[in-house]
C-alpha cells in the first residue's frame, strides 16, 4: 500500500516514468499529475505525449502543443499543500513522429537533399504511419534522449514522464528497440537501438500502470505486469484511479433488508423526510416509497464494494507500490489536477 508521508519518494533514482494503463483509465491525467508532483521543490520535469491526440493541451487548457518543449505549469510548494520554497516547472512536448524522424535522420546521417527526397517519395510517411515499429523507435528514442540530456549544472530535466500507449501495446512499444536491434544486426541503427534499450531496461526507468477497480482494467494490469516482467522491463507502481469511498457495506444492507427496516424508516423520519404531515401514518406514507429505491441503491453499492474488494486483492498479489487517487466529482480541471498531484506526493509517488 501507499507509503507513509515521512518516507522518501518511492522512485528516487528514476528519470523516465512511463505511464500506461487500459484506455480511458486516466493515463493522461495521472501522467500530468505525476509530472506536477515530481516538479515540487523547484525541480524541472518534462511531460511527453506520444499518441498525437493533444490530450495534454486539453488538460491544461492551452492551445495545441507544437513539436517543441514548452512550459505548461509552474508548481509552488503551497499548491501541493507543502511547506518550503522553490518553484518547480513542468514542460510538455507532443512528439510528432514525422518531425522526429527527420530530426533523427539529420542528427545521425546529415542527409540534406536526400532527406527531402525521401520525404517527397513518401518514405517518411511510410516509416511513421505504416510501420508503427519505426514510429515507436522514434518515440522511445526521443523520450530517452530527453531523459539523458545534459543541461546547465546537470540534467536538463530532473524527470521525464511519458503519457504512453495503453497496456495492450506497452511491452511491444518499449521493446521495439530490441526488435529493431535484431532486424538491423549491425550498423548505426543497431547501435542507437541498443543505447535506447539500455536506458529503458535500467533502474532509471519505471513503468507505472493506471487502473480502475473494475474487472477489465485490473485484468489488463495483471496481464501487463506479467508481460513487462517477462520482457525484463522495469515495472513501477500501480495507480488506482477514480476511487470512491465505500459508504455502506454488505452487512449494513443485509441488516436493513431484514429486521431493521422499521428502524431505518424511523431514522428517515428523524432525518426530516417525513413530509409535512403530523400524523404518524402520514409521515410513514411519505417515507415508505423511498425505502425500496434507497435499498436498491444500497444493494448496488454494496455489490460494487464487494467487487472492488476482489479487484484490490488481485492487485495486491502483484506486490507493487500502489497509490490511490479519488474520483473527482465534476471531472478533472486544473485545480483537480493539482489535487491529484498533491495526493501522489503525499503517498510517496514523488
Amino acid at each position, binding site marked *: 500500500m501507499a507509503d507513509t508521508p515521512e518516507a522518501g519518494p518511492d522512485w528516487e533514482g528514476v528519470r523516465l516514468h512511463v505511464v500506461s494503463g487500459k484506455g480511458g483509465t486516466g493515463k493522461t491525467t495521472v501522467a500530468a499529475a505525476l509530472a506536477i508532483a515530481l516538479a515540487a521543490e523547484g525541480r524541472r520535469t518534462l511531460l511527453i505525449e506520444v499518441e498525437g491526440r493533444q490530450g495534454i493541451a486539453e488538460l491544461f487548457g492551452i492551445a495545441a502543443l507544437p513539436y517543441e518543449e514548452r512550459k505548461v505549469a509552474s508548481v509552488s510548494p503551497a499548491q501541493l499543500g507543502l511547506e518550503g520554497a522553490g518553484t518547480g516547472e513542468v514542460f510538455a512536448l507532443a512528439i510528432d513522429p514525422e518531425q522526429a524522424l527527420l530530426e533523427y535522420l539529420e542528427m545521425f546521417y546529415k542527409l540534406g537533399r536526400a532527406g527531402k527526397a525521401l520525404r517527397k517519395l513518401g518514405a517518411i510517411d511510410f516509416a511513421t504511419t*505504416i510501420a508503427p515499429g519505426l514510429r515507436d523507435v522514434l518515440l522511445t528514442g526521443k523520450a530517452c534522449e530527453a531523459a539523458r540530456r545534459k543541461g546547465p549544472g546537470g540534467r536538463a530535466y530532473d524527470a521525464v514522464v511519458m503519457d504512453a500507449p495503453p497496456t495492450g501495446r506497452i511491452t511491444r512499444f518499449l521493446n521495439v528497440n530490441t526488435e529493431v536491434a535484431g532486424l538491423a544486426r549491425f550498423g548505426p541503427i543497431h547501435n542507437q537501438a541498443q543505447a535506447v534499450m539500455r536506458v529503458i531496461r535500467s533502474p532509471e526507468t519505471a513503468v507505472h500502470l493506471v487502473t480502475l477497480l473494475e474487472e477489465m482494467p485490473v485484468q489488463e494490469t495483471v496481464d501487463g505486469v506479467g508481460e513487462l516482467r517477462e520482457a525484463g522491463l522495469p515495472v513501477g507502481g500501480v495507480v488506482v484511479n477514480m476511487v470512491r469511498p465505500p459508504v455502506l457495506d454488505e452487512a449494513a444492507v443485509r441488516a436493513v433488508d431484514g429486521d431493521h427496516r422499521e428502524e431505518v424508516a424511523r431514522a428517515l423520519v*428523524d*432525518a426530516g423526510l417525513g413530509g409535512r404531515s403530523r400524523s404518524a401514518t402520514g409521515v410513514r406514507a411519505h417515507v415508505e416509497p423511498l425505502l425500496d429505491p434507497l435499498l436498491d441503491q444500497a444493494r448496488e453499492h454494496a455489490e460494487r464494494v464487494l467487487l472492488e474488494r476482489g479487484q484490490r486483492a488481485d492487485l495486491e498479489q502483484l506486490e507493487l507500490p500502489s497509490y490511490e487517487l479519488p474520483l473527482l466529482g465534476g471531472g478533472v480541471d486544473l485545480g483537480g489536477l493539482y489535487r491529484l498531484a498533491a495526493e501522489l506526493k503525499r503517498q510517496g509517488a514523488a
Partner: protein
Amino acid sequence: MSAQAKGRAKAGATGPDRTGTDRTGTAEKSPAGLADPSLDVDALLDDPDTRIIVCCGSGGVGKTTTAAALGVRAAERGRRVVVLTIDPARRLAQSMGLSELDNTPRPVKGVAGDNGGELFAMMLDMKRTFDEIVLAHSDPERARTILENPFYQSLSAGFAGTQEYMAMEKLGQLRARDEWDLIVVDTPPSRSALDFLDAPNRLGSFLDGRFIRVLTAPAKVGGRGAMKFLGVGMGLVTGVLTKVLGAHVLTDVQTFVAALDSMFGGFRERADRTYKLLQAPGTAFLVVAAPERDALREAAYFVDRLAADRMPLAGLVLNRVHTTGAPQLTAERALAGAETLEENGAEQDPDGADGSPGSSGSTGAPSASAAEAVAAGLLRLHAERMQVMARERSTRDRFVSVYPDVPITEVAALPGDVHDLDGLREIGTRLGRTPA
C-alpha cells in the same frame, strides 16, 4: 441485395440530411424541453432489411458489450446472427463459448429463438487474418517467402490500422458467405475515432504510393520513372537507404514490400467494396457512448464523420446511464437529512463511549443509532446518485441540442460487469426498451 437496398433506401437515409424516419420513432420532450427522438432498437433488429450493424465509439464505452447483447437479442427474436467481436473480456468470451481465436464463427450455446433464431460468434485474430490473406492471394512459394520474412513477422500484427483493416476485411468475407441474415460488428478502440474507415484507404494509398514503387524499383520499370520525375538519382536514394538501414535490411524490406504489393493486388477493390457495403442502406451504425463529457465529445465526432462519409447512422446508444427509483428526493434534501442523522449520532456517541453499550439503559438505543448510521449512508448514496444523474443529464442535453435528430436509446448501468449471457440479455432488454 439490390431489392433490399431499395426497400431500405428510405428508412436508412441518415446521411448528411438526417431526418426522422419511422425508425427514429416519435419525438419526445426531455425535461430540458429539447426534442429528443428515441431509437427503437427492436424495430432495427426485427427489420429483415437490416443486414449489418456496426457498433463504434471511443475506448471502453461498451462497444463489445453492446454488440454481443444485440446479437443475443436479435437471435432470440428469430434472426440468424453472427457477432464479430474484438478483444472481448475473457469471461465474456468464455460465456459465449469463444475459447480460441480461430477466426471461424462458432454457434453460441444457450441462445436460440423460437423462429429459427441462432447466434454465432467469433473473435478476430489479426495475425491469422493477415496470414489468411497472404495464403489466399499468393502462390505457396511466394506465401512462404512472405510468412518467413522478418519484417512480415514483426510488423504484420502491428501495422497502424491493421486491426481496423482486418475487421473490415473479415466483415466483407462474412457478408460474401451470405450464411447469416444479420452481422453485428464490434470495432477496435481506435486511437483516432474512425480509424476503421480510414485504415483501408491509408493502406491502399500507401501501396499505390511512390515510395513503394521506388523500393520495388529493381523489379519494376515504373520505379525508375518516378525517380526521374523527382529529379533524384536512383543511386542517391538507394545509397541513403543503404546507409540508414544497412544493405541486408534494405533487401529484406524490398522483398517484403514487393510481396505485399503483389499480394494486395486486389486490395483496393476489396477495400472499396467493403466501404460501399458500409454505406449501403442495409447497414446501420450505432455510436456507443457513456454519458460523460469526453465520451460524448468523441461521439459527436463519430456522428459528423459518419455523415461526411455518407454512412447510415441509426442512432446513439447512451450506455451505463444511472437511474433512481426515488427521483422525488433531491440531492440537497438527502444530504441535509444525512447531516441531521450524523449530528444526532455524534451527540449520542459520548454517552456510548464512557459506558458499556448495555448500561446505556434502553436496549433499543444501540440498534437505533446503528439504524441512523445506515439511514445516513442510504441518504448519502442517494445524494451522490442524484448528482451523477444531474451531470449525465446535462451532458446528454448538450449533445441533444447540437444533434437534435440523432435518435437515442439509454442503457442503465448494471452494478457489476457484464460477463455472461444473462447479463447480455439484461443489456439487450435495456437496449430494446425505448426511453420513457
